[in-house]
């Protein structure tokens, strides 16, 4: 991926993410046999939020919300600029840091519990991400995203179980059911984002759109140099995640971590071991 394209994509990421989000709401509504909002609804929400009166708890908290946006944006650029895939994964922790510290910094139980759960999300999905990166390395022989995108090998054919594990962990990254424990609206009414409002909530909201691009780009990587297949995979992943989101109820955080550590990680490991066996 060339440098300019990376910059353009990064700058457009909120728009792309917003469109994905809008589409998602439509798709979800159709799955529930509803009409649903228009495609551009997230952007209408955006404008509405910008117009709200600014109410904050304290500046530190509000500032962390903005930094969450900046951090996520930066980590997306690290991903899209074609560098090391592990570095890109770990940069995501950096962006998470701001959201979590922001969530912790107010004395609201919902926010604190939400921030803690946000960390538990990370504990759940990060091993899968890192081991998927190791799998991509085994197939393509490189950690460089730009090289993976050029490689002739199509990773998904060698890593089917890793791909399945990755698909099943996507709800945790995107905070969707059954792994929406961090923002569980019915119990902790939004978790770490509850204390944000107006423009500052807008920042958190936009950062989430960027996270959509971030997560789905990883799916794209599973097709290696085959961009058409990559697009198909991404679309499939999108529909799959929404289907799961609609069809499941929320887990507890223990169930989430147990599912990731005892089901998904072994799934990845089995795939990697078979791959190593095949090579040897």
């Amino acid at each position: 991926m060339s440098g300019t394209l990376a910059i353009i994509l990064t700058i457009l990421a909120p728009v792309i993410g917003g469109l994905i989000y809008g589409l998602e709401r439509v798709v979800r509504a159709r799955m529930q046999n509803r009409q649903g909002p228009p495609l551009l609804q997230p952007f209408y929400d955006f404008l509405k939020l910008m117009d709200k009166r600014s109410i904050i708890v304290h500046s530190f908290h509000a500032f962390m919300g903005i930094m969450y946006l900046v951090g996520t944006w930066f980590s997306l650029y690290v991903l899209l600029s074609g560098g090391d895939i592990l570095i890109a994964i770990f940069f995501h922790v950096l962006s998470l840091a701001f959201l979590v510290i922001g969530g912790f910094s107010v004395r609201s139980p919902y926010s604190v519990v939400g921030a803690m759960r946000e960390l538990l999300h990370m504990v759940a999905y990060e091993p899968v991400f890192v081991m998927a990166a190791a799998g991509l390395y085994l197939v393509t022989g490189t950690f460089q995203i730009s090289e993976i995108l050029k490689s002739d090998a199509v990773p998904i054919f060698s890593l089917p179980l890793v791909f399945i594990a990755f698909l099943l962990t996507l709800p945790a990254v995107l905070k969707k059911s059954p792994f929406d424990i961090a923002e569980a609206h019915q119990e902790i009414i939004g978790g770490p984002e509850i204390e944000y409002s107006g423009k500052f909530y807008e920042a958190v909201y936009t950062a989430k759109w960027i996270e959509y691009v971030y997560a789905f780009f990883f799916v794209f990587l599973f097709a290696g140099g085959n961009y058409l297949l990559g697009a198909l995979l991404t679309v499939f992943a999108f529909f799959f995640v929404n289907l799961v989101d609609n069809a499941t109820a929320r887990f507890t955080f223990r169930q989430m971590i147990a599912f990731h550590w005892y089901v998904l990680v072994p799934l990845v490991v089995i795939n990697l071991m078979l791959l190593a066996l095949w090579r040897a």
Partner: protein
Amino acid sequence: MEQVIGGLILLPWLMALAVFLIPSHRGRQLVTFLSLPVLTYLACKVWNAELPLFIHTPHWVETAVTVFDYLLLGYFFYQGIKFRSFLVSVLAAAQVFLLTWALMILPESYTAPIYVDRLSAFMYLIVATVGSIICIYATKYMEQENVDRENRFVAILLWFLGVMNFAVSVNNIEWFFALFETTTLASYILIRFRWDDISIRNAIRALWMNQVGGIAILFAILFAVKHHGVYNFTDILAIDKKTLSMIPLGFLAISALVKGAQMPFHRWLLGAMVAPTPVSAILHSATMVKIAPYLILRISPVIKGTLLAKLLITTTGFVFVAAGLLALTQDNFKKILAYSTISLLGLMMLTASMGSPIAVLASLLLILFHAIVKALLFLEAGIMEKLFNAKYVEQMRQLVEKAPITVLFISIGFMSMTIVPFGIFIAKWLTLETASNLLSHGAYIASIILVTVGGVVLTLLYFKVIGVMARKRGEFSHFRLEKLPFIYFFTTTLYVVATMVGSIYIARLSTDFINPVVKDIVGAAAQIKASGLTLYTPFSEIYGWQIIGAIVLLLLVPILAYFIHFRNTDRVYEYTCGENIEMTIGTYDFFCVSKIEPFIETAAVALFIMTLVFGGGLV
């Protein structure tokens, strides 16, 4: 050069004597201050010299070491009787028996007993800088604790530095045993320093656990002499790998695991927390536990790729995860730090036993940055204890309102252990990439799972603590920095600056400073290159703009956060759905993890035995 190395070993002893005798507090402080420039200068001199160096010693030194050995073991035996610890006495008696046996069968050896290579010089540098700064800090700390016994305390710390310098420069394993046990003695004296019941109990426990390590070394000597007729590190490393017996190496590895407080021997390091905080700082950063990765690095060229190395990787990787998990259940700040040391020591030994140049590089980076960061965190723990009365995480609530500098420093310390682009993170990244490279041989799959899982568990732990400190009531209405005593501020700032500069220039640091050490240990330098701030590895690269970007985000943000005030916004209280709740919120304590503690310990014991029996080839 012999004099310089002699100076590195003996000067701290002389300074210790001076500190012990000088009656005035200022005078003692001055001598302690001098240790930093003097030792650093000498260490740099060794670093720049032609290495490796073999140094022959006069015959009487050998006799002196033997006599010292017996005196030391006699002292241990006496301590066992005095404090009615049967175990200590029995172990001391066993050591006397084994040592006598070893001395009787030791063949004549013409290899020099002192061997200084880059690894030793690297350790000298860490001891000289990180260790001395802790001693300086200790002079102030003791001022607030117990001035009467300050001279004794600081003297032991300084002496410890000399012992450590000696321990990393010996070649003769019998001498190494003597010094290994001397560090045990030093830690024993330091832990029981307060002379209350709990200190003595913990000191005795530290003593017997470390004695087990000593016994393992004696067995290593016996088996090395029996199989190969040699008892020097360089001689063992020179033996052809095909004929080399793994038994002595297995025992050496066990002694390293004990010294490195790996489970199930982790309790001594936790018990050490009862001592004054500088003790913890020095045990965790510059001295004592660093012998463990040092020893594994010494033997890593010959154990690379063997069953022993694989079992060591599994054992230490297991500890990396398990210690992190147990740390989640802790409430005491120092205990959290202790568990995370145990955990990271596991990672250091894991990378050291992988043995490839990049893995060894990662191990050395970990040793360096862990020494700096752990020293920083322990000093901050001491400051919080003395100035803000906060020993437990729960007492640190809203600390950011009272002590912004302290919180910033602690956050930098924690961040540097988990988040890009700090040194420890780079080491972890290198480990992961090396491990994935080994996956293609299908052998090391456990290591990558353990490294990733352990990494996220530690991240969870650190954020949990930072979160409690960052909680605050409202706006900084009248913002001011806390006043720290000069020595506290000076010592901690040095560490913070070292962490930041080291992390920014990580590429240069790795190629110019660490890589020569790697070359001396493995025989081949790691295939890394630096250009500007960018670090190129055979697998991939981390760019300078990524490092700078992350540093800016991580460092400027918390600082700016104090000064940014959003005007034209309205302040409200937290929205809690209209519920009337108490505003004191605790944090997760993960009691669910303590339920699995017995299983973790059982598994750790099993892994220990497996490492020794199968890895050491005792079957």
